[in-house]
């Protein structure tokens, strides 16, 4: 394979027929920057019907080209039609890179079409860098539970496939190009070859306790938590401050709190006015999910990385500090 023959960076546009998923805009905007450096064209790939107004929003992200795919198999998300679609399109157009939003569905088919094409797939990059010497994309991502950053490249094969989590990059449209090429493709996937059939969908009931994304105050407990009995005080503190309780991955692993309360790249991205982390070590995966007005950290380990991210910190026993905060707030 001569990678020089592979051009253009693609973004898969995830949508529900009415609206584009925000992650697709985010990826268009970020990939635009890579294309500006590499000289590649930015191509957005849309399968199935989407209103013209949404197509305009995609164009506003500075795309050079739209590939609009019609045909059978795209009415609802399914592994087979989307895997086939990107296999066929990548073979035909020889894309250099394909960026896919790291949603549940994006993470479902991207690795599969990468395997069908026998190329590399990366996931959860937090930074994308174009290296002009190698003409490769450097996918920078947290590794080993966020204790170290790894640079991942796909130096020989194409396309370079990456799934990237929603909220990693920002949707800041650079504006519509004077000329946007629109290519129409018809690629039908036989509906009878789709091996999953949708029997029903039940939307999650809205539980305000689990809505940490919209909370202005977050009290977050981390791996330092000793046991389940200690949890109550953090709930109480959250309530006193008018906020919500959240946690880091190890507590979800220990089955102390539900996954919907997990803050970070692979959980929920939060933007509170006030964040207080108790016994949180400060793994990259966690802190990349926080954009806080005021960031407080409490940890008994003075060398914990969390103190590098905080505005104010207290080195001490998390339970004791929490109890004292409750006592003073009640006084």
């Amino acid at each position: 394979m001569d990678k020089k023959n592979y051009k253009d960076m693609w973004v898969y546009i995830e949508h529900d027929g009415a609206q584009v998923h925000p992650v697709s805009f985010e990826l268009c905007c970020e990939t635009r920057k890579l294309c500006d450096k590499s000289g590649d064209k930015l191509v957005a790939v849309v399968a199935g019907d989407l209103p013209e107004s949404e197509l305009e929003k995609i164009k506003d992200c500075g795309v050079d080209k739209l590939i609009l795919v019609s045909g059978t198999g795209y009415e609802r998300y399914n592994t087979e039609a989307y895997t086939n679609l990107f296999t066929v399109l990548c073979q035909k157009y020889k894309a250099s890179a394909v960026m896919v939003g790291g949603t549940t569905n994006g993470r479902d088919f991207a690795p599969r079409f990468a395997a069908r094409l026998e190329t590399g797939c990366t996931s959860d990059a937090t930074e994308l860098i174009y290296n002009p010497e190698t003409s490769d994309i450097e996918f920078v991502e947290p590794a080993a539970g966020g204790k170290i950053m790894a640079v991942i490249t796909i130096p020989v094969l194409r396309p370079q496939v990456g799934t990237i989590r929603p909220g990693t990059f920002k949707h800041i449209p650079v504006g519509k190009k004077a000329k946007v090429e629109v290519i129409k493709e018809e690629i039908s996937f036989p509906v009878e070859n789709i091996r999953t059939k949708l029997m029903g969908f039940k939307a999650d009931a809205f539980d305000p306790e689990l809505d940490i994304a919209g909370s202005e105050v977050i009290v977050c407990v981390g791996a330092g938590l000793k046991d389940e009995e200690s949890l109550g005080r953090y709930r109480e503190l959250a309530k006193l401050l008018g906020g919500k309780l959240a946690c880091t991955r190890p507590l979800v692993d220990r089955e102390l709190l539900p996954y919907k309360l997990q803050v970070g790249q692979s959980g929920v991205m939060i933007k509170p006015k006030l964040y207080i982390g108790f016994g949180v070590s400060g793994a990259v995966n966690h802190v990349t999910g926080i954009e806080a007005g005021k960031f407080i950290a409490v940890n008994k380990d003075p060398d914990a990385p969390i103190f590098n991210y905080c505005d104010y910190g207290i080195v001490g026993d998390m339970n004791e500090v929490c109890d004292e905060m409750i006592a003073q707030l009640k006084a």
Partner: protein
Amino acid sequence: MLKILVCVKQVPDVDQMRMDPATGNLIRAGVPAILNPLDANALSAAVKVKETYGGEITLITMGPPAAEAVLRECLAVGADKAILVTDRAFGNADTLATSYSIVSAANTQDKYDLIFCGKETLDGATGQMGSQLAERFNAAQVTSASLIKEIDLEKGKLIVERELETGIETLEVSMPCLFTMEKTNYPVRIPSLKGKLAAKKAPVVTITSQDIPGLDKQRIGDPGSPTKVPRMFPPVMPEPGVILDEGGLDATVSKLLELIKE
């Protein structure tokens, strides 16, 4: 009889890894190797299926010979036999090469109706393996599956639930099918004494690259891995924040609350 394959991995307990502040390298020495936590939930789902519908559970893992430990651990909670794919030639593999190696090895043993995987591993955490294994098994896939509701053995179909960001899908899917499991409905099982004894005697087949007819050596290990890691570096840290210490806990907390209220 349902043939069930459960894919598991031995991983370093990354939560116990520390970074050497002087060198910026990860200190791996002394970090215990454990069963990937989410694989235990996938195994629970498989055992539940076996209890309800009958069947035989085979485990498969790829790793160093010491990875047999996690196979024995899983055999103790209801798996029947195990495959250990081990060879230096398989080492340094990314998900593409690993999926090719595991499927090539599994295919030398049997054909499987249902394949269960954890949603992701603690160490690599790509969450890609399930989809890539399914591709190579030419199986249907349901990632983020949360419940195996019903199995129609005659028709070879299942009704399953899948967790999306906004709710739960109910899907009908045909066999063979691979599932990556959410932990929601399948808590980790604790082995019984009887299970532990059975695990000691259960058969573990070791498969090396020599044992797989027609294996393409260019598609395994490092040569078969398109993704590379040219460098690692410690996370770039911002300057530390202000550490509050007013002499006593009550004074320090009082200062903190003042700052919060600002």
